[in-house]
Structures are given as C-alpha cells and as structure tokens.
C-alpha cells in the first residue's frame, strides 16, 4: 500500500498528515518495533523506518547517536525489513529512509522485491537524486513502490520540476539548510520552498521535514504543507528514556499525540 492513501485521508479530513521516523534497531530491533507501533497507535499517519548507516552525512547528532547504537548492537538490513513488515502489518503505510550504499550492496532489484514483500510502501533516498537513480526508479516501478526524493531551499526550479516528476507518494521538502535535528524555531525557508514545490508538483503531496519537535511547530508547518515529518524529536525521547522502555513508550505516545493534535488544529 502506497503512502498516497494516508495523504488522501488526511486531505479529506482537511488536515496535514503526520509522518514519524525512527531508525530500525533502536533501542534494539524489537524495542524499535514497539516504539513505531506506539507512534502508529498515537496518531502517526505514515511511518518512516530509518536504515542505520555508518556514514550518515545528512543527520545531526541525535539521529547519528541512535543509528550508531543500532549498528553497535548489530542491526542488519534484514532487521530493517523485518521492522517494516511488523509496522506495515498495522495498516499504516511504512517507508524506509536510507542512504544509498546499503541498498546498492543488498542489490537494488532484490531490495525492492523484499521491501514490497514485507508490505513496505517505498523508499526515501536522502543522498540519491532522480538523475542518478535510474536503477532504483526501474525497480520501484516494477514493484509498485513509492519513490520519495528530496527538494531543498537551494534547489532550482528546474531541479524541483525534475524531482517532483520522478516522485511517487509524496515529495520530501527539507525545510532548512542543514542536518536533521530538532530546532526551536521552524525555518522561514520552508514556506517559500513548499510554494515553489507545489507549483511544480501538481497533485503530489508535499511533506516538510527537519526541525519539528512540538505540536505548535507541527501546526505551523501543517498550515502550508500536506505532511509534517518528525524524526529527531522522537529519537530524542527514546534517548532520554534509555533503560526505561515503558516510560519511553509513554513519552513517545504523548509526543505523537501532541503532534497529531498540531496537524489537526492548523486549518
């Protein structure tokens, strides 16, 4: 099932969709599945499962720390697919967010096939742009998977048009020039970027990521975007509850509920 159903449902409710991210294998594989399910139960419309990678150049310290912990505990690509399967079984569209090399190493066609078999909706590729993605685009199309590429404030109109044309599911707008991480204020670059992207995207939903950590911020972003993407704030909750799984899940559910409320009161 693609992510478009979740965006269509949110649109029908006259609100933005809440997209929640955690890396697989954090705090461990089963704990990560529990955490993602808690986020589904508390109101995430789409789940992004991060594939932990040794060289995450787009990630700030929070997600780096979680990915490193997952890798030190030995998380494998197959564990990521298992996580997708467990979360997708809830009926919530679930995508993988991954740097490119692990996919290439797994085998692009094999990865697409196994992701589809696990019930995954598609892939977000932060270091793969459509002009260098012919193999992935072919594999995704063959397996009916969403292809979510990124646009940035620095993207030219030509590149936004090229990128949105290659996307299926939604287009991921990085709202700030910088790595992932919660920020106290949302970027003033986000609104103009969404407007430029929407002009090129047609009916393709526009999700905004990087920096959102509170319901108020989510409401602000939801006033102009189709989706609000939250990652580091969820990771931070689990990092702050290391050794207290039950407390971590409760805090995760509370944050999700706050954010889910935010995306509903924007309009």
């Amino acid at each position: 099932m693609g992510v478009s159903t979740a965006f269509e449902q949110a649109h029908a409710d006259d609100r933005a969709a809440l997209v929640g991210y955690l890396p697989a294998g954090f705090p461990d594989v089963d704990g990560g599945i529990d955490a993602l399910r808690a986020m589904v139960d508390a109101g995430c419309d789409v789940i992004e499962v991060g594939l932990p990678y040794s060289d995450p150049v787009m990630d700030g310290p929070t997600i780096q720390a979680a990915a490193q912990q997952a890798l030190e505990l030995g998380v494998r690509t197959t564990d990521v697919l298992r996580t997708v399967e467990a979360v997708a079984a809830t009926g919530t569209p679930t995508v993988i967010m991954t740097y490119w090399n692990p996919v290439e190493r797994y085998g692009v066609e094999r990865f697409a096939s196994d992701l589809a078999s696990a019930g995954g909706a598609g892939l977000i590729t932060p270091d793969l742009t459509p002009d260098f993605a012919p193999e992935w685009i072919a594999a995704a199309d063959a397996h009916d998977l969403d292809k979510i590429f990124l646009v940035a404030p620095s993207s030219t109109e030509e590149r936004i048009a090229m990128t949105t044309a290659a996307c299926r599911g939604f287009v991921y707008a990085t709202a700030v020039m910088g790595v992932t991480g919660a920020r106290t204020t949302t970027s003033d670059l986000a609104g103009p970027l969404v407007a430029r992207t929407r002009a090129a995207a047609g009916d393709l939903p526009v999700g905004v990521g990087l920096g959102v950590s509170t319901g108020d911020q989510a409401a602000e972003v939801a006033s102009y975007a189709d989706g609000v993407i939250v990652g580091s704030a969820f990771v931070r909750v689990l990092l702050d509850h290391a050794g207290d799984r039950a407390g971590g899940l409760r805090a995760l559910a509370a944050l999700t509920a706050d954010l889910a409320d935010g995306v509903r009161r924007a309009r």
Partner: protein
Amino acid sequence: MTTSSTTPGAPTSYLADDKGWFGTFGGRFMPEALIAALDELDIAWQKALVDPTFGLEFDALLQNYAGVPSMLYEAHRLSDLTGARILLKREDLNHTGAHKIRNVLGQALLTKRMGKKRVIAETGAGQHGVASATAAAYLGLDCTVYMGEVDTERQALNVARMQLLGAEVIPVTSGSRTLKDAINEALRDWVASVDHTAYLFGTAAGPHPFPSLVLSFVRGIGDEARQQCLDLTGRLPDAIAACVGGGSNAIGLFAAFLDDPEVAIYGYEPGGDGVETGRHAATIHAGDVGVLHGARTYVLQDEDGQTVESHSISAGLDYPGVGPQHAHLSATGRATYLPVTDKAAMEAMALLARTEGIIPAIESAHAIAGVVELAKERPGQTLLVNLSGRGDKDMGTALDYFGLGRAEPVADPQAATPEQQ
C-alpha cells in the same frame, strides 16, 4: 611553464563525462541540498579552465609561492641499491611539504572567484588541512578544518601548524574518528553554510566535479615530470608509481601518462598489518564496489554496505574509499594497484633516509617500498616515483616505531631493518 597547469590534456577514455562518470565509477550521489553548490562550483571551475587570466594567476601562485615546478631528482644510491633507475618527483619540497598545496591554491582561487569568504576542509594526516589553512591565510579567507580525533592525536604537530596559520581545527568524535568521519562532518557543516562557504575537498574523490576538479589542479605533477623525464633521459619512464589513499597525488602523476601505453602505472595502497589480517586500507585491492562520500568507487564495506574501519600507519592514506578515476583505471587494467604494509613502508622510509638523505612522508614511503619491489621485476628500467610529501610530520610515528629520540644509543633504525642493508 608555458602552458597553464589547469589545461587538461586531450580527452581520453580515462576522463569523466559531463556527469562525472569514469566508466561506471564516480557520479554524484549527494543530498539535493548540496547539488546547487556542486553545480555552482562546476560552472565556476569550467569558466576558470578556459580563462587565461585564471591560468596565469594559478601558475604564478604555484611558481612564486608554492615552489612549483618541483624538481625531478635522480636517486643514484637508491638506484644502485635496487638495480633500476629511480627518479623522484620532489613534491616534498613544495611549500607546506606536499603536493596538496597545488590543489588548495586552485580551489582557494576558485573560492575567491565565487565571492565566498570561508573555506572548510577535512584532513587526515593534516597535510591537506595545513595546505588549506595556508591558502586561506594567503588569500584572506576564514578557514575551518575537520580532523578525526584519532588523527589530531597522532598528528598534533600539524594541528599546531593549522592553528598558527589562523585556522580553527575541530576534532571529530563521531564514527571511527578518522578521515572518513572528518569528511562526514565537513559535509554536515557545508550543507548548513553553503551560501558563504566553499568546501576545499582534499583528494580526487567525492562527488562530481571534485575528482575532475582536483585532478585539474594537481595534474601539473605529471605534466612536469613527463617533460622533466624527457629532458633528463630522452625518453619516457618505463613505469610510474605513487601511493594511493584518496589518490590525488597519484592521479596528478598518472594523468599525463594515461595515453602513453608503453608506460606502466602502479598505485600502492596502504596494506596496514597485511590485507589478510583485515586491518588495512587497500580499497581497490580488497574492497567492493559501492557508494561512499558521493561517488561510486571501491569501498571497504561489510555485507550490508556499512563502511568498515580502515587501518594504516599513515593517517593520510587511512581512508576506506578511493577516487573513482583510480577505480576506473584499475577496472580497465590501465593501472595496477598493489598493497604495501605498514612495515614495508616504514622500512622504505628509513631506507630513503639512509640512502638519499631524504625523509619521506609515510604516505610516500609506500610508493618507495613498492618501487623497491618493482625494481626486482624491472631491472635497469627507469621508474618514476611521486615523492608526494616530506616526513617532518611523521617524526612522532617514526620515533615510536624505531625507538628513536633518546640520546643514548639503545636503538638503531638500521637494526630494525636488517633485510634492507
């Protein structure tokens, strides 16, 4: 020099196409947020390449400031010892002590042209960081250098040099705390600072246009050496050799000879404790094709595509990737890449010191060690080696390795290398 050092030679099948592909290697696997900056850099560089003013400015800076062209030195005693005629391209005599100054002066001049006021750089051994700090000081740019915490410890002298030159040195504590993590951190800085900051990439690797751009600034090594060899010997060398970490000194030498099929080309990779031990950085020899830092190339990685920590006694070669043009040269068979162990490199360092009175960087000592072996296969032939850097920065490592530095005669480096004597 009568022609600009940035003038590319005639196009060959070994150069990249306009998307940065060297055959199936290279390309640009980067976050969208950095694509505009890479395009801006590409356009500024393409304009500079055909602008005689830029070429003259770059050449003048190399000659009057960096000490280029470096000499081609005939190593008579080493030749006598090995039975081959060994010529050393003395990049170690350049200002700041390595070939790296060519690259940073070119990139820093481009930075000025683009109107940016700040440069960032990653560094392993510190040579590229020192060169970047030097170029920034000379051209009045702010400079921040990212250096793995492990490397700041084994290359403390270079940290001090960078600081004295006015650069900010940031120790990188993520991942393996070495060169690859310094690159990660520099990229993280760049994605947030790209509107006013240029990234002086330190080797002929990374996303397009860096491999080709860096080559254009260092290819003077080979262009000069080719002519110097013709002047000295009346013919081309039988083989050329260089050490390969990321591979900028090597590609700088190799480029001028790629279309001379009679010249054999050897790249010597850091074999660490020995490739069979798994503790090495011999990326082409023992790695697999993958994507690292923006390019498809050979990568030391596990079966899930996670980068594996590399090991080399030489911080400047301690990198789990390699420039994509080298991957292409290996795959096409144009160049041969072989590992040289830490031990062999250190022995070669001592050997060159004792036979020629030249203390090479440990990086460059890998090439010396390789050529000492190569001489056995090629007796009487002319072997041209890039002596890419000097060993001053490595005296701490040499002191520990050979047990040097005490006033009492308790250890003799020759005693540590009996087979060389």
